[in-house]
């Protein structure tokens, strides 16, 4: 059974910074990462022999430093390992997919850095093949060095759509259009204070130049209404603020409504010096502020753990940077505030994909005088019950429940998901084998 001071879950920017800092502070560190390479979604590495997609020099420099620091740090990395949770005896459970075993690890502290997931709103056809998250298309591009094939439509909200479109244009297949519910170019938005983070302006300008240079229409104040099957692929209907509708026939649709913490079901934070183990979260899974903030927050988490484990207090410049990035995100949220009201979504629309539950199913379930809790909606209606553990439907289900019951207390995603392990599907045989390791041998 592996033993260490700190087990870091996730090898993205937050996890890498946490591992490097914890190790510099004298702690023994191990890391689990679900893929065979480090970097997370933001720094997803290209496969061997492939030319990486173009990136800004500052992003390349950050990766270079992070990976160099990581390779110098005496951190044992377990690749191909999936985090399952912390069991009732305080052991960390993970599945080592390379050998097909569940491992119980005794760590004094666990730093969870599982990153973010993308928000996707339910619309008819969001569950069709060819429809993915926009970030899903982006990481695939980073991995393969190639743009997704065919005609692509990007739709939703926020700056990631522009970034993905620019990268697609740079590798030779710009999207046919970007559908954006906000309108960051509308008058009256200057002086919002983006100068708190000048790098964001530089980044935005670079991406916009690539998008406009490739002639990609940026349809602001517009929403995607639905996606249907079409003889030549998929037909997406787009509604403009003035009610005008247009159709796009494409091969792929990338949806994105911003990011949220990938925190569904995670073990509770336990950050007292007496906690066994200490459990803290770092980076986007704690607060979704993006990769630069994740790095800072990872280092901060490591300092906190070191202090709790009696390795002394230390300070870096992380708090100040996080403050500025938090302000910058608030400005971006204002810039991209939707300028078109949400559209009506028909009852047949899939809400929970894993269990095949629709918006109409939820309406039927919550109709009536008794006020069902999030937990009841999960157990009786199977919403958020499936293999994704509600990562893509719990927030949407909670929001719709709140809207359907005006006056009732609002429902949040964690009312449905709760805190539980295993966080990912795992074979019962592997779990039983792991339990046996613990049994006394006498």
């Amino acid at each position, binding site marked *: 059974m592996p033993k260490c001071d700190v087990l870091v879950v996730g090898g993205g920017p937050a996890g890498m910074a946490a591992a490097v800092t914890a190790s510099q502070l004298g702690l023994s560190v191990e890391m689990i990462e*679900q*893929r*065979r*390479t480090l970097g997370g*979604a933001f720094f997803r590495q290209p*496969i*061997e*022999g*492939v030319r990486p997609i173009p990136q800004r020099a500052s992003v390349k420099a950050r990766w270079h430093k992070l990976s160099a620091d990581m390779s110098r740090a005496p951190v044992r990395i377990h690749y191909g390992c*999936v985090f399952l949770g912390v069991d009732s005896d305080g052991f960390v459970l993970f599945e080592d*997919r390379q050998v*097909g075993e569940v491992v119980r690890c005794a760590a004094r502290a666990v730093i969870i850095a599982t*990153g973010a*997931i*993308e928000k996707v709103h339910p619309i008819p056809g969001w*569950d*069709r*093949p*060819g*429809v*993915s*998250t926009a*970030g*899903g*298309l*982006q*990481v*695939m591009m980073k*991995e*393969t060095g*190639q743009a*997704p*094939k065919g005609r692509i439509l990007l739709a939703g909200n926020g700056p990631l759509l522009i970034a993905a479109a620019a990268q697609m244009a740079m590798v030779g297949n710009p999207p046919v259009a970007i559908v954006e519910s906000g309108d960051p170019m509308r008058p009256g938005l200057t002086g919002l204070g983006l100068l708190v983070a000048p790098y964001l302006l530089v980044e935005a300008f670079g991406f916009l130049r690539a998008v406009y240079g490739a002639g990609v229409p940026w349809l602001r104040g517009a929403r995607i209404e639905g996606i249907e099957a079409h003889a030549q692929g998929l037909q997406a209907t787009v509604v403009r603020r003035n009610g005008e509708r247009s159709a796009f026939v494409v091969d792929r649709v990338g949806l994105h409504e911003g990011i949220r913490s*990938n925190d569904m079901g995670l073990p509770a934070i336990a950050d007292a010096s007496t906690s066994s183990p200490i459990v803290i979260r770092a980076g986007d899974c704690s607060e979704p502020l993006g990769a630069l903030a994740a790095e800072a927050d990872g280092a901060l988490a490591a300092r906190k753990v070191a202090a709790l484990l009696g390795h002394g207090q230390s300070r870096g410049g992380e708090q100040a940077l996080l403050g500025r990035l938090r302000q910058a995100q608030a400005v971006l949220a204002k810039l991209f505030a939707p300028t078109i009201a949400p559209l009506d979504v028909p009852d047949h629309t*899939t809400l*929970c*994909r*894993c*269990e*095949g539950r629709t918006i109409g199913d939820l309406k039927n379930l919550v109709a009536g005088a008794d006020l069902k809790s999030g937990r009841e909606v999960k157990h009786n209606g199977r919403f958020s019950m*499936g*293999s*994704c553990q509600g*990562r*893509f439907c719990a927030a949407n289900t909670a929001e719709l429940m709140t809207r359907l019951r005006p006056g009732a207390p609002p429902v949040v995603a964690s009312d449905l998901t709760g805190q539980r392990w295993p966080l*990912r*599907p795992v*074979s019962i045989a592997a779990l039983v084998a792991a339990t046996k390791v613990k049994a006394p041998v006498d």
Partner: protein
Amino acid sequence: MSSESFFWMGKPIPFRAGESVAAALEAAGILSFGPAPGGGPTRYFCGIGACQCCLVRIDGCVREACLTPACSGARVEELGAADAKV
């Protein structure tokens, strides 16, 4: 580059070293990975192992196609009736 391949429903799919099963299937124009236990089709969606939408059976084990590196000679199949929920 390598000329290795794995089998998707018995058909050889070429892949490049280090590539995920999902990337190789997408490159081969395969967007639907078969029926899912919940009803709809299984397919690539989030790319980060979170959504469980791209589950396939690889040499008998249910795995996320977006996380699992392609391996020469592997048998990759749709989730069959055996994976349907009870």
